[in-house]
């Protein structure tokens, strides 16, 4: 009986791990766009790599110390970005595969977020009570589509500090006023 319990525990381990990764969104539905894109970038930093990355930031430097603290709590950074030579290479259906996930329980779209970049930026946070457990950014332009997914506790004010580091693109996000969207679940 003890043997059976151990076996079941072993088999359930991946299921339990997957549950803990709820704020990770699936982006593989966008992979087909690589065939049309002039430039494709994929970044995958999982929890273990995040812990290692935290070591490189210098405690003596105020800015780096903040980033280190932020990175140490994160469980992953995932980026998928496509640039196209011409317009109309991705469809609303492509975006919908991402947005559908971001309409799920806990996800809230932030309003009053602007970006220095052209196009539209949508920022979503995954709340567990008052705590933020994940962030997703969807940046769309006529010739560009970028999805950034940060798994773990992160807020918009700190996101800016990650831009240009750890594979996070420079999104030029400027938080103005954090407000929960009324129509969210």
């Amino acid at each position, binding site marked *: 009986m003890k043997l059976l319990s151990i076996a079941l525990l072993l*088999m359930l381990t991946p299921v339990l791990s997957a549950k803990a990764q709820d704020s990770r969104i699936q982006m593989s539905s966008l992979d087909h766009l*690589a065939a049309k894109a002039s430039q494709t*970038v994929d970044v995958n*930093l999982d929890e273990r790599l995040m812990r290692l990355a935290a070591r490189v930031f210098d405690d003596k430097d105020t800015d780096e110390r903040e980033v280190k603290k932020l990175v140490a709590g994160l469980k992953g950074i995932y980026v998928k970005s496509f640039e196209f030579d011409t317009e109309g290479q991705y469809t609303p259906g492509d975006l919908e595969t991402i947005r559908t996930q971001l309409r799920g329980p806990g996800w809230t779209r932030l309003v009053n977020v602007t970006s220095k970049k052209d196009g539209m930026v949508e920022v979503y946070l995954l709340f567990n009570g008052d705590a933020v457990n994940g962030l997703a950014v969807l940046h769309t332009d006529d010739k560009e589509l970028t999805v950034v997914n940060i798994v773990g506790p992160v807020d918009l004010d700190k996101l800016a500090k990650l831009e240009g580091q750890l594979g996070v693109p420079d999104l030029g996000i400027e938080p103005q006023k954090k407000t929960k969207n009324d129509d969210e679940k």
Partner: protein
Amino acid sequence: MKAIATTILIVAFVLTPANVALATGDDFNSVVKMIEQFYRVKHEGLPFLAKAGMKVATTAARIKGGDAKRIAEAGSVKLAVFEDQKFDGDVVKFRSSLNEALNVTWMPLIQTVSATDQEQVYIFLKDAGDKFNVLVITIDQRDATVVQVTLSPRNLALLLKDPEGTGKAITQEATINDQE
């Protein structure tokens, strides 16, 4: 009952990712062969690679003097260089094949593919005890490089902080070292 439990235990153990990972061979050579086959850049056996414009070398990394800093651990560098050959092919298909071949043991860190410029950069990571193996593959229209190095956790952190920059530095370091 005991037999069923034992069977489940064995199946669960076999399906554990760590055990799947053990079932692979030399991925560096596999990647080199894959490039050769996909792009038809080699038609000779390994001893004749130099004639075909490809060099394979396992270099002993040497610590330079002055301010130079080594990224790779000493003696860990495996390098394959394809020079002045035609890399004409479907980059998306190649990327897909490469990921399929490496996804069991290697973790994709960053992949940059430019279909219009036919430029590709792939960086994969693999656990190597207290250190890490890094595989950097760069391909452009005429040249390609495959580099595998071992990194300390400290240098891995540098790679994670700036994947593209450090990936390029690893390739440059290995290439320069090979020419010394």
